[in-house]
């Protein structure tokens, strides 16, 4: 805790994670040499990827639920997978989590208030009931909720959007420095989705909280995040400032991804409908030696298939692609 101000907030170094299934010992590389750094507080960092890219696994590794097979996750300079119990409490106070389905986040048999109460009591050391309530109420008010509307209710008595708001309120109670949000809005309706995203932006501005926003939706990523990492089959193909990457993608996968994004604008229809020749997703992609995208990439050659591209720094972004190697 002493190196609080000097160390980077969150650092992932060479994270590898392999899952094994069934009789045949079929191995599935969920994450392959993932590097990522959130420099300091007050940053919204997006991890964008499609289904099967390993983004949820990554979130769980950062939360300490899974252990990586190789590599380190450091929060403020400390490896979070080898924390002492007092440090683990500190970590869970400073880092909080929000999940995709709010109904699966709260135990349906318990009142949602019990989570708020438990958090305050156990992390902040308050013991007096009225003191706790007062504190909870002040936090809830700051994001537009009232304790009286929440206190006696069970999870199913809220709509999905409201419940997600309460989950966020709960994570705010400990005044965290980092919130890991795993697809926090993908189950919500479009008209409510933006409210939660605005709340994130607001919290970042007001309390200097950093977010690790995990999503498959590039439009929302563009809307809120400062940095973005594009995940493909367990590897980060490109990472850097959101503005740079989404406006001017360099990696062929990011390019195709952005081209494929449907937009609420009929004028873009002709471009969208321009045929795109792509092979189907292949299972081989999980086990390939070289670049995972090489089967589908129109620029790929023998080298791409055989050898993993290094991480190349161009301006202020990092790209894993042989195309940019000589630069």
């Amino acid at each position: 805790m002493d190196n609080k101000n000097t160390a980077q907030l969150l650092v992932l170094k060479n994270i590898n994670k392999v899952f094994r299934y069934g009789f045949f010992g079929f191995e599935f590389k969920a994450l392959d040499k993932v590097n990522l750094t959130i420099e300091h507080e007050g940053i919204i960092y997006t991890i964008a990827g499609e289904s099967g890219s390993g983004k949820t696994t990554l979130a769980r590794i950062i939360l300490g639920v899974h252990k990586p097979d190789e590599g380190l996750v450091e929060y403020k300079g400390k490896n979070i997978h080898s924390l002492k119990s007092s440090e683990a409490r500190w970590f869970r106070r400073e880092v909080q989590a929000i999940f995709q389905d709010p109904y699966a986040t709260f135990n349906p048999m318990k009142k949602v208030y019990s989570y708020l109460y438990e958090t305050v009591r156990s992390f902040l050391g308050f013991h007096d009931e009225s003191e706790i309530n007062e504190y909870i109420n002040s936090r809830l008010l700051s994001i537009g909720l009232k304790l009286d509307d929440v206190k006696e209710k069970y999870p199913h008595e809220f709509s999905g959007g409201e419940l997600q708001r309460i989950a966020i309120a709960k994570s705010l109670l400990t005044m965290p420095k980092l919130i890991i949000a795993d697809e926090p809005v993908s189950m919500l309706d479009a008209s409510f989705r933006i409210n939660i995203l605005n709340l994130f932006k607001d919290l970042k501005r007001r309390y200097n909280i950093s977010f690790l926003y995990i999503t498959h939706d590039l439009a929302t990523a563009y809307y809120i995040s400062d940095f973005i990492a594009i995940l493909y089959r367990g590897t980060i193909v490109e990472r850097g400032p959101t503005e740079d990457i989404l406006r001017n993608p360099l990696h062929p996968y990011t390019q195709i991804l952005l081209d494929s994004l449907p937009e609420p604008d009929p004028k873009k229809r002709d471009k969208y409908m321009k045929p795109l020749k792509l092979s189907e997703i292949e299972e081989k992609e999980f086990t390939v030696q070289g670049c995972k995208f090489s089967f589908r990439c129109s620029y790929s050659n023998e080298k791409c298939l055989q050898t993993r591209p290094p991480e190349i720094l161009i301006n202020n972004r990092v790209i894993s692609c042989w195309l940019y190697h000589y630069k």
Partner: protein
Amino acid sequence: MGVRLVVQGLFKNIIKTRKMGLKFKAGATIFFVIMIFGLLSFLTPHYHSYWYHFPQAHPPSLQSVDFIFGTTSNGRSVFWSLTNAIVNSLIIAVVTSMLACHIGLIIGILSGIKGGVIDKIMMFLTDSFIAIPGLPLTIMLAMILKPIINLFLLGVIISIISWPWSARMIRAITLSLREKDFVIFAKFSGMSTWKIIFSEIFPHILGFHATNIINTMLGAIGAEVGLAFLGLSIIEMDTLGTMIYWIQRYGAILQNMWWWVVPPIATLILLFLSLYLVSTGIQEFLNPRLRRVK
């Protein structure tokens, strides 16, 4: 603290019985009636322990309570035998289910939570036990222990084949719960591992555990009857199994001594039915998807 939570959870579930379905109510009623009948055994007259006390093979008559269900070829009152048999069979069932289900519960939760080497060793042991066909093993044990057999020991013997299934199921449930979002969420709400086990994981296991206890009782009663068929139950005591053993032995069916035959068999079937109804009732209550199917 943990205990308090568990008790609270149980209490809440019991309160909810008002909302239980028809199956549960029917099952509980039948079971209750059988229990009351069993409780009459505390009034058993001392002469019930003597054989050939009454006229042999006497059909039912209303002259006294002793004759209400008639007597056996050994001159014993079927009525008193039956009441005692119910209690003794239930004792065996309860001993078995308490032992087997709780051993299963502890091993299952430990395996599921701890993982790693402990998990591997325990699951290897469990799987090996599951692979042994239960009946032959119990028969062998019962035969060897015959000289010192008693109600408790019989329960122990039967639980040897009953615990592995519980352990396996509980472990599977625990494993699936361990990585659920709400468990992680609870962890990040500052709950300790034990508190999470008790307040987040255990309530989800409780339902299975309850039905498992009842199903194990059902299985234990059946197993006792099975052993009794071979003369391996406690022959000198009244249990539902031994009653049937004597019926078999004396060819009561072929002699059409229906008053001797019908009570234990009917009780047995009703007992099976009631326990099964209670267990499916709980299951349907806990799993609304089943409730819909009805």
